[in-house]
């Protein structure tokens, strides 16, 4: 596994563990030591460290959650206008026996996948696919929407600009706000700016412990404010982008706990926790009439912000 810069103290221990395993020596003590060391490290993560964990290539990604948590998942393609954006996986399946619509950004676990899926950055066709399917779900299928978010941001390229990226984001955001069904989003890794909010507005926003959600990535924020990316760590601390900070600011609704060490080490456990959290949220949301849900969803967004009169 790729070790992150702040995990370097573990490197030597992992090597020793490997050696002992190879030689058939006792590893119990060493494993305990590693666990302890890891807990120490993860208890002291800075916000920028958290961003690095959120970006770890081995973390489960939206497509992994969808494939693990849904049965009979059937992917739908295309925006009915231009093309099918491979960066957005979207379709229907059964979640614990209940039909749901699920979508999420595909990021890719290796360089080959990352190129294919644009690292989870949606193109206009991705946002339009989301918008059209959310409208269909809201009108015809009438099932809950689950959106998994792991994106560094919306695609920025000459093609995406010329194909109306900002308009496409508006369409998707607006469709989710207007949906006449419960909407839950889970930020599983990166929640970068417009690209994230364009597919995450809903009744409940949940975040994993080591995910982030921010107006811009720390690098972009640093570029905007300092004209270089050197201040990324400082900007990360000031943006209040971690799940804990966002929960205390009342911007998100809940945190799905990851074990110390992160989802990249405890994939199945974290996927199970996400499933449990979704089930409990859905049970609560489905008890309420959808008109009431939607009213409160809009009230929630219309009351967001801090200012003085």
């Amino acid at each position, binding site marked *: 596994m790729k070790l992150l810069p702040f995990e370097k103290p573990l490197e030597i221990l992992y090597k020793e563990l490997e050696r002992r395993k190879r030689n058939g020596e006792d590893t119990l003590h060493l494993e305990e030591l590693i666990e302890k060391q890891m807990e120490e490290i993860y208890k002291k993560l800075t916000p920028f460290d958290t961003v690095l964990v959120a970006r770890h290539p081995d973390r489960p990604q939206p497509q992994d959650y969808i494939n693990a948590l849904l049965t009979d998942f059937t992917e739908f393609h295309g925006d009915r206008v231009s093309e099918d954006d491979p960066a957005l996986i979207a379709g229907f399946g059964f979640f614990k026996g209940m039909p749901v619509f699920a979508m999420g950004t595909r990021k890719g676990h290796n360089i080959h996948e990352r190129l294919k899926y644009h690292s989870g950055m949606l193109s206009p066709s991705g946002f339009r696919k989301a918008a059209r399917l959310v409208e269909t779900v809201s009108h015809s299928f009438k099932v809950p929407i689950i959106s998994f978010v792991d994106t560094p941001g919306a695609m920025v390229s000459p093609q995406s600009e010329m194909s109306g990226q900002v*308009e496409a984001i508006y369409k998707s955001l607006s469709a989710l706000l207007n949906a006449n069904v419960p909407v839950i989003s889970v930020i599983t890794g990166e929640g970068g700016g*417009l690209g994230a909010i364009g597919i995450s507005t809903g009744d409940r926003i949940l975040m994993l412990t080591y995910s982030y959600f921010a107006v811009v990535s720390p690098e972009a924020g640093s570029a905007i404010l300092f*004209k270089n990316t050197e201040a990324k760590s400082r900007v990360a601390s000031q943006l209040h982008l971690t799940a804990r900070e966002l929960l205390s600011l009342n911007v998100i609704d809940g945190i799905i706990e990851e074990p110390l060490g992160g989802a990249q080490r405890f994939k199945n456990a974290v996927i199970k926790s996400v499933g449990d959290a979704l089930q409990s949220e859905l049970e609560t949301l489905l008890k309420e009439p959808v008109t009431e849900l939607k009213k409160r969803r809009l009230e929630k967004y219309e009351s967001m912000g*801090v200012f003085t009169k």
Partner: protein
Amino acid sequence: MNIFGKKKKIVLPVIQGDGQDVKVRCNSCGRLIDYDTLKENYKICPYCGYHFRMSATERISVLADKGTFDELGEPIQSVDVLNFTDTVPYKKRLADLKDTVGLPNAILAGSGKIGGIQCAIGVFAFEFLNGTLGSATGEKLAELIRFAGKNSLPLVVVFSSAGERVQEGIFSLMQVAKTVSALNAYKEKEGSLFISVLTNPVLGGVASIAMAGDVIIAESGSYVGVSGPRISEYVMKRSLPKEAQKVENLMKRGFVDIITDRKGLKDTIIRILKFQNKWGKL
């Protein structure tokens, strides 16, 4: 100071004393323009047609019928909610802006007449932190949209913004959802009409809000898109050709209804307002 060396960097002068004989160098063609001539010419360069930026109050003075604009509600102040410091503490930036710009946030909103037709009018103030969308700006815009709906008025918003305000972090991003939600409610009303005016530049989430317009008018030569040049340069490690965000090209691709220069803008808006049958009389 070498005023000839970097002609692109020289922007609007501060008028000193009685303001006589102040000259401005055009950002585009580099020629010297008499400031009074420029002002009379809607701040358009008489030689090359370059549109200088207008302040929110200047914009209102050329858009709303004289003496009809009334500011809406109480002033809403931006707050340093995250205790943010970039090169300067955000608190200090806000305090300074209060003195220099004289606005509590980056939008001037109110009601007024355009060509004799009562409208809800919002104008982004680029002079206030590049017209960025903080909580106070978002709330004011939402208040304007609600006001337009409540009073069955057409909504005219002139956008000029560098996008979200990083110093307000996630709250800035949430303003995009907030205003889109308010716009959805407005647009649900039969007879509502949102005229969105794009001026140079409109970026990020503010551009997404602007694209909700029932009618989208752009001032010629404006740039509209997801992010400014700095992000593409530093983060994407490649520069984004400016042409991709030029409204002339966006119109060709189908995202803008009308392009007009600033002189023709008010007349264009008046015509569109007149094309609409009076509210409730259909």
